[in-house]
């Protein structure tokens, strides 16, 4: 024990005070025995001493092993209901043992909550662990903390900080130990702080899970590389471990699993893919509680031969082109339109996408958006080949890709083409209200704009009546027509027959060469002899196409199909109203027969380029047709037809390039080209011109991730292998939701550039790394990273080793019994106890004998007196 004085200066008052008391004692006139007076002096001096000590702030510094207990309860998602109940039960028993004094409760998950003092049991029987200001029991209160994570380190730091001075921190940590951030063992704990750990588990159920799938981030095609699978288990077991590359199972083996961590290694290679997804799965276990954690996915980027995707409405027709390209060292995957990936990471497997004779209506919005973003932001290449369903006739006008193509799809037909009379019959029933009618108006406007001034058009709407929106008039009145279309509003029922009849009457007497009706409806009409009417219209030279929009169940598909068949038109079913404008555009172009020219021609070289090196077009055969287009301002027209229309054009869009070849590469218009020796070379060189250039041969990328925090480290070397340290650049990060973020790369070492990422959603994240050297050379590379479900949602067994380590290193107890909480702490701290009150109380009590000694003559105790009489 030690004493200290906070204001020792006051102790100096003792000396003069004692002197004064002594002097006055010496000259005392009091009539008391000498010894009694002496005792009185001593007593009074003692009182004075006590007062001085109190004034000086005398404090007893006592070594104390009294703990202050902080209950740290994990309320994150991973603990689950069972864990919460276990915690509640432990807390109740603990508080009943410790009482509520010198205890605090802190809930925590991704961050710690507010420390609370526990109070005494309420007389009304409320749970003793309930805070007086809060009626909910600990563990049931989940509001203040974010449950989607577990950070034990922050919680421990707050817990020990919340312990008042003079007590030994005793932290009782109730958790499953599966931390998603921070490092519990790296917490700087004060000397003597004990951490007792209470595991919260989901039960003693046996559990096996895939911990990790370790893959190299980048390999060369054909090069073997190691694949490491880490499996953790709570017990010994036997299972089947399977490895899939894409959809194909590449390895399957029976494995013996021991308790703890098990590592299995395979060797794999990537032959064709640029971005290969590997999936590992463990199954067939004897005992395993949860199956969700039995798989994991990893991505590998493979460099090697370029690979393109070739999509055609009829894949068989484009095989010759695929063979020709493969012969020249370009790998080509051939697929139908629905095989085009809908996500950027799917497109990242390729350097170029070729769309051959595919209408815009065959692609979904996701596909179109993904292609555009992939070209602009990730440097992919896109080439459209001609055909009856490409460019304008394919309805590509005003689609997301229309802007980025070097050739415009809204080609107006020439004078010598026959005039067209078209009537648009649009359903304006109540069910069309909203997006459907909006799309219908947009479609009608688009159709009007595609017509030439000589064409004539009318717009009729119907619900239970027929309404003339625009009279039959020349398409030259575009402005008025567009205004009138804007007045189209939703109405009542659906009676289509009178509207079709009116359209037929309008066109019957129209002085036009081509007559066409487009009907748009989303429902089932009142009865009428539609098929008969369609037959009459067809006989009168009017073709009828029908567009059904919405659910199949809501429309009479059979009838509408029959109308279009009898009317020698086309039938479309658009589940997504957004397709309607494309359909109308396509219909208009097709009906006007304005876009396709099927006269044989010889290609004319308009601009010399490396892509045409070694090809003599003087000797090339004829092409038998092409789609008429107009070049976009700024595009490069490389080849043209004899009539001066563009045949091959390209330009740069964002980081990528797009091109258009208005003829085709198959047997329809390029039949003679298929046997031409220059066929393969021409297409290979065009492909190489347009495809993505991953110029990053001197770029090594290292991607690491911990939870939602990732880091990309790029090492850049030049052709001689020396570091390039003067580059500047950034990373374009595109998430699973297609949201994009651009992050600057910071130089952190010679030739090394780093950026920190946040990848907080499950799925594939695409990164496009771009660095520009001081000499102006741009080097680019793309990578992808896969994030599974949040770490917090991974169902894992209790992290017993961590909890045991925490307890052992701090002198705590693993799995304590609540009764043990009454033990004193092993460590001790200095606890200051101010003695002021005690000293003053003592001084006050000493006043009694002090007065006693002066009021009573106690000569029999103290002997004779000085004899002064009263």
């Amino acid at each position: 024990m030690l004493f200290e004085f906070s204001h020792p200066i006051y102790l100096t008052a003792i000396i003069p005070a004692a002197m004064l008391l002594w002097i006055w004692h010496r000259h005392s006139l009091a009539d008391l025995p000498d010894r009694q007076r002496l005792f009185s002096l001593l007593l009074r001096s003692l009182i004075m001493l006590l007062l001085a000590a109190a004034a000086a702030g005398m404090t007893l510094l006592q070594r104390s092993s009294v703990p202050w207990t902080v209950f740290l309860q994990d309320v994150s998602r991973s603990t689950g209901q069972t864990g919460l109940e276990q915690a509640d039960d432990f807390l109740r028993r603990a508080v009943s043992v410790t009482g509520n004094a010198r205890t605090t409760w802190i809930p925590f998950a991704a961050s710690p909550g507010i420390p609370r003092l526990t109070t005494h049991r309420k007389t009304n029987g409320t749970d003793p662990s309930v805070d007086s200001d809060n009626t909910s029991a600990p563990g049931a209160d989940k509001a203040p903390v974010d449950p989607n994570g577990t950070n034990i380190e922050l919680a421990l730091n707050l817990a020990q900080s919340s312990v008042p001075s003079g007590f030994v921190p005793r932290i009782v940590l109730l958790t499953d130990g599966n931390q998603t951030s921070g490092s519990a063992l790296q917490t700087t704990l004060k000397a003597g702080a004990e951490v007792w750990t209470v595991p919260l588990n989901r039960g003693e159920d046996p559990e096996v899970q895939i911990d990790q799938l370790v893959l190299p981030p980048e390999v060369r095609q054909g090069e073997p590389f190691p694949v490491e699978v880490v499996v953790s288990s709570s017990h010994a077991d036997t299972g089947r471990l399977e490895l899939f590359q894409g959809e194909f199972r590449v390895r399957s083996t029976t494995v013996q699993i021991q308790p703890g961590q098990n590592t299995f290694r395979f060797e794999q290679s990537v032959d064709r893919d640029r971005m290969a997804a590997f999936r590992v799965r463990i199954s067939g276990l004897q005992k395993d509680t949860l199956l969700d954690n039995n798989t994991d996915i990893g991505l590998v980027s493979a460099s090697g031969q370029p690979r393109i995707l070739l999509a055609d409405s009829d894949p068989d027709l484009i095989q010759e082109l695929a063979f020709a390209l493969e012969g020249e060292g370009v790998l080509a995957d051939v697929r139908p339109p629905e095989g085009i990936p809908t996500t950027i990471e799917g497109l990242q497997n390729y350097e170029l996408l070729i769309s051959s004779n595919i209408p815009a209506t065959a692609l979904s919005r996701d596909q179109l958006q993904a292609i555009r973003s992939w070209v602009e932001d990730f440097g992919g290449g896109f080439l459209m080949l001609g055909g009856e369903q490409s460019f304008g006739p394919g309805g590509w006008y005003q689609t997301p890709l229309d802007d980025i193509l070097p050739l415009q799809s809204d080609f107006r037909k020439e004078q010598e083409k026959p005039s067209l009379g078209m009537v648009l019959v649009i359903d304006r029933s109540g069910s069309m209200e909203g997006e459907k009618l909006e799309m219908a108006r947009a479609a009608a406007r688009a159709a009007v704009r595609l017509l030439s001034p000589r064409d004539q058009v009318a717009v009729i709407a119907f619900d239970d009546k027929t309404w003339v929106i625009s009279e039959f008039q020349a398409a030259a009145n575009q402005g008025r027509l567009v205004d009138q279309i804007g007045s189209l509003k939703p109405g009542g029922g659906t009676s289509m027959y009178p509207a079709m009849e009116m359209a037929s009457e309008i066109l019957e007497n129209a002085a036009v060469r081509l007559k066409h009706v487009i009907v748009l409806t989303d429902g089932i009409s009142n009865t009428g002899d539609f098929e008969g009417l369609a037959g009459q219209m067809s006989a009168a030279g009017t073709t009828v196409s029908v567009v059904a929009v919405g659910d199949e169940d809501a429309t009479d598909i059979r009838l509408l199909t029959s109308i279009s068949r009898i009317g020698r038109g086309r039938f479309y079913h658009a589940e997504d109203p957004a397709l309607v404008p494309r359909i109308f555009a396509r219909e208009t172009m097709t009906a006007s027969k304005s876009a396709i020219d099927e006269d044989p021609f010889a290609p004319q070289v308009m601009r010399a380029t490396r892509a045409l090196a070694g090809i003599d077009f003087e000797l090339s055969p004829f092409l038998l047709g092409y789609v008429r287009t107009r070049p976009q301002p700024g595009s490069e027209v490389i080849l043209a037809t004899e009539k001066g229309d563009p045949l091959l054009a390209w330009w740069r869009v964002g980081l990528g390039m797009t091109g258009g070849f208005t003829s085709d590469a198959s047997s329809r218009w390029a039949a003679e080209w298929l046997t031409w020796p220059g066929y393969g070379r021409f297409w290979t060189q065009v492909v190489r011109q347009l495809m993505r250039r991953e110029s990053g041969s001197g770029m090594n990328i290292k991607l690491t991730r911990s939870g939602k925090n990732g880091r990309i480290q790029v090492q850049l070397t030049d052709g001689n292998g020396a570091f390039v340290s003067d580059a500047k650049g950034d990373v374009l990060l595109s998430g699973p939701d297609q949201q994009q973020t651009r992050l600057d790369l910071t130089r952190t070492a010679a030739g090394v550039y780093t950026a920190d990422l946040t990848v907080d959603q499950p799925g594939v994240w695409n990164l496009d790394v771009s660095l520009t050297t001081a000499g102006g050379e741009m080097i680019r590379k793309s990578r992808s990273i896969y994030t599974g479900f949040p770490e917090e949602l991974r169902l894992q067994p209790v992290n017993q080793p961590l909890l045991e380590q925490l307890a052992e290193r701090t002198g705590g107890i693993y799995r304590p019994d609540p009764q043990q909480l009454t033990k004193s702490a092993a460590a001790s701290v200095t606890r200051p106890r101010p003695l002021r009150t005690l000293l003053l109380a003592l001084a006050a009590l000493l006043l009694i004998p002090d007065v006693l000694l002066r009021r009573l003559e106690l000569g029999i105790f103290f002997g004779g007196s000085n004899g002064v009489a009263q």
Partner: protein
Amino acid sequence: MIFGTPAALFLTLIALPITLLYLLRVRVRKVSISTDMFWSQVFEQRPPRNLWQKFRHLTSWLMQMMLLLAISIAAADPRWEIPADEAAFQVLILDTTASMQAEEKQGTRFRQAQEQAKRLVSQLRPGQQAAVLSTNSEAQIECGFTAHIPALLQAIEATAPTDCSGTCHQAVDLATSLLQPSSGGRIVLFTDSRPADEVDRLRALCESHPSDEAAGRCDLQIVRLGQSQSNLGITMFEASRAPTDPLGYELLIEFANRGDKPVTARVEITLNDVLVDVIRLQMEADENDSRLLRKLSAEGGVLEARIRDIQFSGTVNLTMTDGLQTDNTAFAVLPERPPLRVLLVSPGNLFLRQALQAVPGVDLTELNELPAVEADWQGHDLIVLHRLVPSVLPEGRMLIIDPQSDCNLWNVNPPERQPLIVQQNTSSPLMTNIDFGNVLIPQAGALTFTGTVENLVITDTDNAILSLCQSRETSCVILSVSLSDGDLPMRTVFPLLVSNVVQWFTGNTGISTAGIRTGARATVALPADWNSDPTKSMTEVFLRSPRGDTRTVVRREGIGRSSSTIELPSLKEQGVWNMSMARPQAGRKKQSNNGDSVVKIAVNLASQQESDLRFSSQTDSLNDSISLAGMRSQLPPWLIAVILAGVLLALEWWLYQRRLIM
């Protein structure tokens, strides 16, 4: 006024026995005398003051009561109520980042912070409590809430600055969490400078704590310390082994002149305390400068850069130093380049031998015939086979030149005469700076490969004279050209090709153990041999700081973590740290750990923020004046009562002894 210990007022009950004692009549003592004549004269000269006589008794009693009351009140701990503008609970945060070590006229900034914090603590009112946190890259509690001023003073004194950079977010967040249960309070941050936007974020954090139960409001007051001053510092120092040159390494150093005047200085760079370079710096005001140095050295070790002779123009600086010393030094660790073990099996070719020996770091073993024992194939990083090829190639990496026999990967066909090179894959790293176009090759071998092969140089007959063949066990580069015919060995193509093959197979990435910034958490790879012996206890590693302190770090935090890496705690001291499996022996700077390997880790401040000791006009206005209400020199009420009691005690004593009271 309120009482801290109201129960002490029960001490006033002592008045009862005291009063009782006063009610007792004091029996007058009888003394026999011979005459009362002289006593009569005394009485006549000094007539009894009957009125005062009556009050002497009462006065004495009153004085005793007053004394008792004073003592009781003092014991009850009276306190003035804390004004609304003062907080009952305060958290003091001491900024311990590196810039706080900047020297000022009144001592370092940190010393100033300590002094101010002590003053604040010393003036705590009764009933007020305070806690002390320190902040750098992390927040740490130094002293929990207490009203015991000496404990707080001791904690403040014991806190030391670090070499870290950091923000104060975690500390302010922690302080807010600590204050919330107390219905809010005051946070006082002692710091030198914070960017204005950070201050805004800190205030917002304080005022809108994310907890839904935030009951109290926390005020954040910032006490800015120090004066704006110029500083020159090293903001980056990294060393990397060159990817292509085994002996070469590159140093990237960045300097920042955070001053309003140009500066000159000298920078010395040493490797294992041996001087390797001196840089003369001449920088304009507020300029950054970076230097990339290319050096050669096979040995590894500790690189140190030290700035000396700093002179800001227009100033006289006798000490030739600047405001902050910490950032005048930086460290990097350069790994050794171990020799490359190459086995050459050849009947004999001078050019081939010399080409291999010319590759730096090659340790060449030569054999004239194929090894008979499988073990002889082991232990080499690269095997070079010239003409001699076993029927089954061993596992490993190989360069095979002019194979004359079949093996498991190819069959040998009749050679091709006068081959014409038509295609070269220049994109392959093996073909860097190589062009076979002008090489005279009278004859080239023709091989038919049994597996997948990448052809790099192809002739007009589709024969590949340079190929790369990779299988599960074996990777080999095959050059099917005779070295004794033609002029290939005498062309630069040949040694370049050999060098490219060596680089290709040894996979030098050029990145060394990267430095760590002070205060940052980092994951470092453990040496392979630390994992090789499962019988060794490998749950902990030991870190020895530059000053010689040792701490343990757990290797694996339970299940789910890789054991080939380790996450280091935040290292707050700049310098070279040593990590080992065995505990370092105390008192020895150089570790000898019985042959166990030691991993050196360079830890540097390298922070633009900490090197900038200037205050902008925005930060100048951030110095909140701390409410000094708590700092008034005011005696607490209890002390006044004690002093009053003491005065009464002495006065009553004197009066009694002079019989003025009874």
